[in-house]
């Protein structure tokens, strides 16, 4: 089976005055996370959409499901863990209950990247089937500066070799289990990115082309940008 894992473990500490986690803020009268879930629900390769949500906001998410997805069997909500990888692990555990096939694929995506396209999802699924694990990236436009002590530059990598990581990140569920279970507690504390975890354990992570519009809504500024991107919506005469 092919699962989508929507990662909504965050509690939005960087969103300025808003006290509600950013994935629940509205764009065009719909929670950002619902825009994300919609895309995976309509994608015909995806069998189930499992949303891993911060346990404190589990009830709130269930109410979103009740309000926006009445009768939609494809959506499952699970309480997430304390960090990103443990939330993915909660989703993985849920996939095992629902399928447990060695061929299962999980496409994980940030709940705060609502501009994801069907094309990105399809290419992630293809790459995960073919290569085992993949990451969605765009070529870096700013020069990336690397500093180990926050004071001086340690390195400036060649720009043509640098990319900005987005999501989805996708992989075979079985591979994730192998990798996750071999991580030590110390490793888990430092490694917050799923693809980094795969690399640490010697797996090659394939690149999938993202899109500059696939922005992550992290700061109030991003939220503003997202709203501007959706401005001037005309009423579609075909849907009224």
């Amino acid at each position, binding site marked *: 089976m092919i699962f989508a894992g929507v990662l909504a473990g965050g509690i939005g500490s960087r969103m300025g005055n808003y006290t509600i986690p950013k994935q629940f803020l509205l764009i065009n009268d719909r929670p950002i996370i619902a825009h994300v879930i919609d*895309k995976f*629900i309509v994608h*015909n390769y995806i069998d189930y959409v499992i949303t891993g949500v911060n346990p404190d906001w589990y009830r709130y998410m269930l109410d979103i499901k009740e309000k926006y997805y009445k009768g939609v069997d494809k959506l499952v909500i699970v309480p997430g863990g304390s960090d990103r990888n443990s939330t993915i692990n909660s989703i993985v555990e849920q996939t095992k209950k629902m399928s447990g096939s060695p061929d299962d694929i999980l496409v994980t995506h940030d709940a705060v990247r609502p*501009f994801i396209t*069907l094309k990105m999802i399809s290419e992630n699924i293809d790459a995960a089937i073919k290569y085992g694990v993949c990451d969605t990236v765009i070529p870096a436009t700013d020069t990336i500066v690397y500093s180990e002590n926050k004071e001086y530059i340690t390195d400036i990598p060649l720009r043509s070799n640098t990319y900005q990581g987005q999501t989805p990140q996708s992989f075979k569920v079985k591979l994730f289990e192998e990798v996750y279970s071999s991580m030590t507690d110390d490793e888990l504390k430092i490694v917050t990115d799923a693809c980094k975890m795969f690399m640490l354990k010697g797996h090659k992570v394939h690149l999938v082309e993202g899109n500059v519009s696939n922005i992550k809504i992290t700061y109030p500024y991003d939220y503003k940008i997202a709203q501007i991107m959706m401005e001037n919506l005309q009423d579609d005469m*075909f849907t009224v």
Partner: protein
Amino acid sequence: MICLQYKLVKPFVIETFFNDVKLEGTSHLIVRPEKLSICKADMRYYFGMRDAEVLQQRLPMALIHEACGRVMYDPTGKYKSGDKVVLLPNIPGEDEFYDENYRLDSVFRSSRADGFMQELLRIRHAQVVPYRPDLPDEVMSFTEFISVGVHAVNSFGKISHERREHIGVWGDGSLAYVICCVLKSLYPDTKITVIGLNPGKLQYFNFADEILTVNQVEKKAKFDHTFECVGGAGSGAAVDQMIDTLKPQGTIMLLGVSEEHVPINTRMVLEKGLTLLGRSRSGREDFEQAVSLIENDEAFLGRMKYLVSAAIDIESINDISKAFETAKTADFKVVLSWNT
């Protein structure tokens, strides 16, 4: 959900926009356009051949009104996810006295509403016609175009007198080809003569009974009825030849679009008692009949395949520009494999 749209903002310039495609409600289904076909009308927008005022009024607008796609989500369960459907570009207006496609309040895509250059569409069930998955998507993409031919031939059947032994079709483009194919299927005993300019394109009409270039047309009455599929600057000359070569009380089916006013020899129209009938768009029944022809008439389907002059993978805006440039010189239809 937030979905991409590709809109023409001014001639030659396409930009991405976002649209909110709503999932809720049971009145609509969600469809992903998969193969799109370029029509001359789209080209007139893209290359800026419409009046400045019209462009000013209608742009930005997503182009393309010929497409087939895949059902992604149907809350009513009538269609399964993955079902193939032809997409209808019009919403009929309310006054049922008139045919649905001619009502003044009808809305047509890539004309007064956004066309199919979109990631996903939310549309009504009445705006899709399902088709068998083994049929070639490239051909299905221009079902709308075929349905216009079906509509024209059906109208012709209702209005023209019943002596239909010999029909002349003017034009050597996609429209003339479709008209000839539909006539061949629906009026198999009628003799068809094609009159065109381009000998290379005319070779594709080998199933017709007679092929002439315009300068080979003799000025004598031989046709019971004629179809004008020329349009543009050639419309007037074509109609002149039709008037000259029609037998009394014949029908001229006017199908070619012209931006210019076309002078017509009304004296001879009156003298011969001719009927001039314009047809351009089609309705749901025409779509269903077009799909049925493709599904059940092997010769018709076989001929439709020759209309696909180029199929272009669309991954970016540059690819869209390439497709329009290709359409300028292609013999017939250019199909876009929509993968954006």
